[in-house]
């Protein structure tokens, strides 16, 4: 998995995105290990085009689509999807237009902080919002992360723990 390259590709293309999920947990201090990366993206026409262009060299395909079926990777595909789960030369990349418990991109961005990581300045959900999103998602793998994330928040006295 080439996580850093995925971040670089989007960042360098000027894509509006926020890192969510497991890598957001890592940025906040979780010891969680994950092999994919989740981005929340702004579903504007311009942003979708930037994403499509940025990831095209890495041959993205829908993960659950049989290899034999045709697939068109473009801004329209992105604009029509709320959750786009991809396999690519960079590994699995998930693009979400909405985040459980938070909302669409503008809400997600409002609940995010800018962090120096991946040799770039990237946005990621703030810790209280990451916790809220994991709780709202409600899957076993999300709930399993809560004790650790809540400990990080409590350890910092409810301040944004870094």
């Amino acid at each position: 998995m080439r996580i850093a390259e995925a971040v670089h590709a989007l960042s360098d293309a000027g894509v509006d995105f926020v890192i969510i999920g497991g890598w957001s947990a890592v940025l906040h201090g979780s010891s969680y290990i994950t092999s994919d990366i989740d981005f929340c993206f702004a579903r504007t026409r311009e942003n979708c085009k930037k994403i499509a262009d940025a990831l095209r060299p890495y041959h993205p395909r829908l993960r659950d689509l049989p290899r034999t079926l045709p697939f068109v990777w473009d801004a329209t595909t992105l604009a029509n999807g709320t959750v786009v789960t991809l396999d690519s030369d960079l590994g699995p990349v998930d693009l979400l237009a909405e985040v459980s418990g938070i909302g669409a991109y503008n809400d997600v961005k409002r609940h995010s902080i800018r962090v120096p990581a991946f040799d770039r300045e990237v946005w990621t959900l703030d810790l209280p919002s990451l916790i809220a999103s994991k709780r709202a998602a409600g899957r076993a793998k999300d709930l399993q992360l809560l004790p650790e994330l809540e400990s990080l928040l409590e350890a910092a006295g409810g301040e944004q723990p870094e």
Partner: protein
Amino acid sequence: MSKRWHPLTAEQLARAEERLRHPQPGSRIEAAQKFGVDLSLLISQLRLTPAERVRRALDASATAEMVRGAARRVAK
């Protein structure tokens, strides 16, 4: 609240470490400890910058990828 990441001050970090070393009864941290979270790992992580956390996680992820299925391969 600032929208940009900023490190905890030395005092804030010391308080955070103290809370993790000696969880208050009934706290979230105590619950996490009982759940099985290794609090010493969190102390170690809190001392790092986000960039350092990412590098550490990328290393761990690469190692996990390398050894994935190794036990099965040995068993064959």
